[in-house]
């Protein structure tokens, strides 16, 4: 028995030694023959479907670019790391991408918590990071190499409040959100402030802890105050349950949400309970624009599934980096960073946008209405529309 243990520990030590003596080299990443781009996403764990769909969008864009001959003759090489749905793990894999894989740019993550943990690593290493869909305002404040291609929670919350007050003519609104989720709580806060500023009243507010699936008390608290509209900024996995609970308790008013609602499963999970409800989204799936339709067609062919906003934003993030390489004049870390800062009028699936001085994308939000199994565009709100 002891000898066995000895052998095992000796082997472990040898392995460790081999691992560790992988000496530090500081080769210039720009000199390599391809363009290594790091991707860190939740590919397993509680939020795995966010990461997997985003990764699909990234893969689709990379395949298209490589099939067309790459960028300036260089092919893109994606190194994907799984954060296991844990924010602290995002920092560990960010270090792996920055130093082991020597990536020239990074894409990630969906969850703002992970992006905030990984950002300092990329910032210190001088690597530009593009978050496809972290909407929390704090993400890009972590450093001057941190970018994003989605709109922000403050704009999204304000746009939804604007829509509720002006278009839905609601003066009394309710709020229901996850107290321990930055996305949900952040969005609710911006909605609340803007709705009040417009002259509306928040009549009820209820919160839940992010991992519950039982909302009876929260729904009772909101429904009792009979608001004209309830803003429910949660993910699609919860909205079905919440909508069902509202209808069970006899509340018939419309619900309103953010981009987290969107999923090919949304209507299936909610049944008929979301009929006539609205949510803000990144693009109009029925847009006749060739870029949008080409993307949807390509995605269906490659993955035999419907694309969603997360995959579209992942797709746009890759093309934004491609444009940055072209604008910056090369694929080194500094050149890509410079290029990203110069992006103006970028035409993506999720709309045409500029990267502003705070490294955020300035882009419109599309309000969609749920009817049957279809999503109909009812309004496009531009960043300039919000005052």
């Amino acid at each position, binding site marked *: 028995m002891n000898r066995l243990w000895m052998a095992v520990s000796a082997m472990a030590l040898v392995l460790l030694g081999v691992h560790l003596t992988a000496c530090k080299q500081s080769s210039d990443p720009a000199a390599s023959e391809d363009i290594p781009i790091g991707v860190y996403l939740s590919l*397993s*764990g*509680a*939020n*795995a*479907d966010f990461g*997997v769909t985003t990764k699909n969008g990234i893969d689709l864009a990379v395949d298209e670019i490589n099939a067309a001959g790459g960028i300036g003759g260089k092919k893109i090489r994606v190194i994907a790391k799984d954060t296991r749905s844990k924010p602290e793990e995002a920092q560990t894999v960010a270090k792996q991408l920055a130093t082991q894989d020597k990536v020239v740019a990074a894409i990630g993550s969906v969850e703002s918590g992970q992006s905030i943990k990984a950002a300092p690593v990329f910032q210190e290493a001088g690597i530009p990071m593009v978050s496809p869909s972290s909407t929390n305002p704090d993400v890009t404040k972590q450093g001057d190499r941190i970018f994003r291609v989605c709109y922000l929670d403050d704009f999204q919350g304000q746009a939804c409040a604007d829509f509720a007050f002006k278009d839905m003519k609601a003066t009394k609104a309710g709020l229901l959100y996850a*107290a321990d989720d930055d996305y949900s709580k952040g969005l609710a806060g911006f909605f609340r402030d803007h709705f009040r500023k417009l002259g509306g009243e928040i009549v009820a507010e*209820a*919160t*839940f*802890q992010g*991992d*519950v*699936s*039982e909302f*009876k*008390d*929260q729904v*009772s*608290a909101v429904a*009792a105050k009979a608001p004209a509209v309830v803003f429910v900024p949660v993910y*699609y*996995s919860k909205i*079905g*349950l919440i909508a*069902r*609970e509202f*209808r*069970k*308790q*006899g509340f018939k008013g419309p619900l309103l949400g953010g981009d987290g609602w969107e999923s*090919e*499963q949304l*209507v*299936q*999970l909610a*049944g*008929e309970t979301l009929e006539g409800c609205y949510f803000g989204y990144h693009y109009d799936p029925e847009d006749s624009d060739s870029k949008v339709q080409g993307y949807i067609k390509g995605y269906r062919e490659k993955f035999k599934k*419907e694309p969603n906003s997360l995959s579209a934003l992942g797709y746009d993030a890759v093309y934004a980096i491609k444009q940055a390489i072209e604008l910056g004049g090369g694929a080194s870390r500094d050149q890509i960073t410079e290029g990203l800062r110069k992006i103006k009028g970028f035409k993506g699936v999720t709309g045409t946008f500029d990267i502003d001085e705070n490294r955020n994308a300035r882009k419109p939000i599309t309000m969609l209405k749920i009817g*049957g*199994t279809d999503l109909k565009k009812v309004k496009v709100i531009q960043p300039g529309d919000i005052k």
Partner: protein
Amino acid sequence: MDFTQLLQNMTNGVAKGSCYALVAVGYTMVYGVLQLINFAHSDVYMLGAYFAYWPAKWMGYLPDEKGGRAQDVPLALVGLFVVGSMVACAAVGALIERAAYRPLRNSGRLAPLITAIGVSLLLEYGGQMVFGTEPRLFPTFVEAQSYDVGGVKFANTSIIIVVTAAVLMGALTLFVNHTRQGRALRAVSHSFNNARLMGINVNATITMTFMLGSSLAAVGGILVAMDQPTITPLMGLRMGLKAFVAAVLGGIGSIPGAALGGLLLGVSESVVAYWSTTYSEAVAFLILIGVLLVRPAGILGSAAREKV
């Protein structure tokens, strides 16, 4: 103070608490015989929902990807699915006991605790790989209907939960107190050796305990999935925590205690939610600690007096 609203919350709490109670019974029974916190129990609860989900899906009782209306499952089939899931979960429970706990029967209390955590992680991560991580719609076993009695609203699913939980807990109490196997179970939880001296097959009795607890967890999983028809491989995490707390609150090892603890936890959460939904769980935990300080072995638990 709005009494209708308070009453509404209490009604919600009873429905919630009944689910806690059903799952808590599994913790308490295993604890009663082995003094082991069976961390894997909440994952058996998750499996219960999935075991009912798959056959219903295969037989076409789910709407297709594009939504549309789900076909309701006929009552006879519902019964079949529930029993099938109970049997499957009982088998899983027995297997877990045989593979992960029995080899450690004489190794103190902490080693089985860690294997329990290991089994739990295995079922969670394995479940994510096998079932997929995306949430899934649970088929409609009972068409949802709402009632409104004097301003207090509740759904038929809540009634089903409360009634089923009450019936099952009653049956379990009768079983434990009035059958030979029940007596064996009580004897084993008292002392392995004495039970053995009385000719009781200790291993078989422990296996039976796991099977009983697991099949009740399966019912719990299905009942909750009926009320909240979205299931994920991690749905057991929160429920497990709550049910375990409920079991301890009621006095772990005591079956009526688990029922009482579940109801108390559910109702106190809901009543606190009348004032603040943000702090409702925090306050529920505070109540728990408070109760334990007054009754260190839970409400119905009997503190073992130390002999000097």
